[in-house]
């Protein structure tokens, strides 16, 4: 028997014979012309490998990477390296959470259902909104689904998006909207790097979307967004960061209709970008138009509290082409991980994570400006990420390459001269001091930027 198959071929043949079937006839129904015969299987091992061989091969691949726990990294731009408490892995690796599926049979899935219900509750408490779904693939697809929801609700076909949105998200929305025959209009940021004063008027917009903190880390004031949307019979959408909500006003508090985003910062490993876990929350009036699974509380035949998947009349397995979305799978396990992160940290812990991240970003920004080599790109307060610009030109790619030799993964070069840097509570003052000293040294003394 191969791999993890528990019944040998001999036993299999015997079982089949006991009910009048033959092993060699199992695939007779497949026409000969499409049966696999002599094919070139380059790239596929002929025989299976042992567990030891698999470990050797994959460990070798893993060791070919340079990693953020061994290098000093300043990358963010949508995925952030926050500390993940040890408890999380212990719980989500329990097979009852790990190996089960979508809770179709409520009686034997109360664990997953209650965990999803609690996720929804946490998301509502953080975003200040009424209804959350059970999660979506990632922050980018959540933004796309949010805007599709906006178009369904308003029956209009054009949305406006501030350029402060993560470009990966914008690209995703454009892909979804092109396929759906809907229109996307992108508005440039103002000179301060925010959306203030940039919202277009007109009653043909289904919705307006901004990100806060935006791609450049700047915390947006959402009040103008809400006002503009109300004036134009449109809906307001904010792609937001859940950790930042421990410090800043929530979208719901300001009156925003929909909040969406990426919950990876809540203790989910970087994993080279995935899997991720998107969230989507909205005002009550949008409940029956939400995409994706939703868990609800009810009672059983004896009156005990029970949890079920609910409002399924929205979904593809019932409504087929008339469904609110094609979504079937959500990201339940990661939503549970994020929920455990929130439970472990509580309001006090989450606030500390947010404040430390902000304090360290502000510290690093100040130090870089002090070198006289950089200037702020925008003069507005940021959260844990910011953009700086080389004062005297040069190539950040060259600087980043040189930093790698010193075991540092520098910020994201948005152009030759603009550098986007992120830090979290994990970053130490010493690491930042050393980093700034090295950067200064490389530019001043070693002239790595070239002329």
């Amino acid at each position, binding site marked *: 028997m191969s791999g*993890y198959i528990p019944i040998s071929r001999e036993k299999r043949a015997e*079982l089949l014979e006991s009910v009048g079937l033959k092993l060699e006839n199992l695939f007779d129904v497949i026409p000969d*012309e499409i049966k696999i015969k002599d094919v070139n299987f380059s790239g596929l091992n002929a025989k*299976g490998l042992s567990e030891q*061989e698999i470990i050797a091969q994959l460990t070798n691949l893993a060791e070919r990477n340079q990693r953020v726990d061994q290098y000093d990294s300043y990358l963010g731009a949508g995925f952030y390296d926050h500390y993940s408490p040890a408890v999380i892995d212990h719980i989500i690796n329990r097979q009852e959470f790990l190996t089960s599926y979508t809770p179709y049979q409520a009686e034997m899935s109360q664990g997953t259902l209650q965990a999803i219900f609690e996720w929804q509750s946490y998301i509502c408490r953080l975003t200040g909104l009424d209804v959350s779904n059970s999660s979506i693939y990632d922050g980018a697809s959540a933004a796309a689904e949010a805007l599709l929801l906006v178009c369904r609700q308003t029956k209009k076909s054009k949305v406006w998006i501030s350029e402060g949105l993560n470009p990966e998200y914008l690209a995703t929305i454009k*892909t979804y909207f092109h396929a759906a025959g809907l229109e996307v209009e992108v508005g440039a940021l103002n000179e301060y790097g925010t959306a203030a004063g940039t919202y277009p008027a007109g009653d043909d917009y289904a919705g307006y979307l901004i990100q806060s903190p935006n791609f450049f880390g700047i915390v947006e004031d959402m009040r103008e967004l809400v006002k503009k949307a109300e004036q134009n019979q449109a809906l307001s959408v904010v792609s937001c960061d859940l950790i930042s909500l421990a410090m800043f006003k929530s979208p719901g508090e300001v009156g925003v209709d929909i909040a969406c985003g990426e919950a990876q910062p809540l203790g989910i490993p970087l994993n080279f970008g995935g899997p991720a876990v998107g969230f989507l929350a909205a005002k009550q009036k949008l409940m029956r138009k939400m995409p994706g699974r939703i868990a609800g509380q009810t009672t059983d*035949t004896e009156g005990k509290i029970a949890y079920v998947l609910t409002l399924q009349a929205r979904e*593809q397995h019932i*409504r087929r082409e008339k469904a609110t979305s094609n979504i079937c799978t959500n990201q339940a396990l990661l939503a549970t991980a994020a929920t455990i992160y929130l439970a472990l940290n509580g309001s006090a812990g989450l606030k500390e994570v947010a404040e430390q991240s902000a304090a360290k970003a502000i510290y690093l920004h100040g130090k870089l400006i002090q070198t006289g080599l950089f200037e702020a790109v925008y003069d507005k307060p940021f959260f844990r990420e910011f953009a700086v610009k080389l004062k005297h030109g040069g190539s950040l790619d060259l600087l980043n390459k040189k930093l790698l030799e010193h075991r540092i*993964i520098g910020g994201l070069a948005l152009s030759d001269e603009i550098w986007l840097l992120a830090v979290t509570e994990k970053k130490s003052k010493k690491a930042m001091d050393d980093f700034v000293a090295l950067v200064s040294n490389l530019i001043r003394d070693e002239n790595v930027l070239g002329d």
Partner: protein
Amino acid sequence: MKHQTNLIFDLPQTGENKNRILQKCDVIKPNFPEFYGEDLLRQEDLDIPNLSEIQVLRHYTNLSAKNYGVENGPYPLGSCTMKYNPKVNENMANLPGFKNTHPLQPVETVQGNLTLLYNLEQQLNAILGMDHFTFQPSAGAHGELTGIMMIKAFHEANGNLERTVMLIPDSAHGTNPASAAMAEFEIREIKSNASGLVDVEDLKQKIDDKVAGIMLTNPNTLGLFEKDVKEITGLVHAAGGLCYYDGANANAILMQTRPGDMGFDVVHLNVHKTFGTPHGGGGPGAGPVGIKKILEPFLPKPVVKKIDNANQPKYVLDYDRPQSIGKVRAFTGSFSVYIKTYAYILAYGKQGLAEVSEAAVANARYLLERVRDSYHVPYQEPAMHEFIITAAWQKEKYGVITTDIAKRLIDYGYHPPTVYFPLIVQEAMMVEPTDTETLEGLEGLADAFNSIAEEAAENPDLLKNAPHDMPITRPDETKAARNPILKA
């Protein structure tokens, strides 16, 4: 574990949260109200509880005990392929060298990741008979949408804007029409014939020059192999359409036949079904999409490329793709799920994968024969990896419906099959034991199905009141939808 687990929000907060988890902040916190201005800042703390570690652990450990997983016992949920999820694959995905890499790192620092994705693409090409794969889609339905978008882009690039119709059999997964509708296609439903296969005559009548393509699952959702598949894909191609293979049931055909050889231009896989990555209570899965060369320009970006130039990194991410449909999510995809996929394929190899499909089909065929006398079997074509039985006899004679049988199976300690799907079969139960079911699991399931059929005759109330020994009895779903309580 029958007692109720309080909501986490109802647990008593008995201590100050001293923040045991984080180290002390080693920079001076600035005056935040001054830095940000009062208008932006939250005035009150978040309304989420501060709990101790043991409270949180007990809470979720107790919740987990109210779940049933593949390691508890048989999980014959049809179309979901609930096979064993190898433990070593979890260890591999958790290697710090993979786990601690950021998606925007320079390519020269993630050569291990890119090598893995490149190798996995070669493996999948070989297994499915395709030319390229994209790893971006995060789930099966997401893969469907991505594939359909590429079909749309292909027709647009050829100036065939009038191709607005997607052909979909009436037995298809609900995601198929839902995905096609998201890309603005008009759905034209193809009938199934009395044998449960695509009615080729109906297909012929419904093909015209507005057809953009067809979405087909093979074996189909009745667990039957569409043996006319070459004729079907030929007809659609001849009319100028493209053919989409829904890979939900690919476990049945691994290394026996390939969608590429059946004539399909686009394929999605559910690696959480076919390649044993865990389902996680509903995700994360992954839905890589394979395509033939003609669709290569439209692949989402970036694409992993190998370069044979000594001065450059060997593997790179290619973003320079002017005809690409764009992106369907951020970054390159659910990487850690693909580590598990890769490890799974390595563990089997070509020969082993052929045995996977053989075991999957053999187990289903054996189980079907073992329960055939107890239940109505609507289709007589040979079953592949899953089969449909119904509660038609029990309903007519004893007023027992599929739900009752499913719930009674829970009393026997088994997860029920998929119920009431496909929609074209009344009182359907779709049973998929998978390749990793044990002998005792198969026999136990068969015995349970058969004895439940007897109970239906002798004591139908036993079924109607099932399950009897779970944390809850049957929940009131109507109440849940009518008066939604969706948060605490």
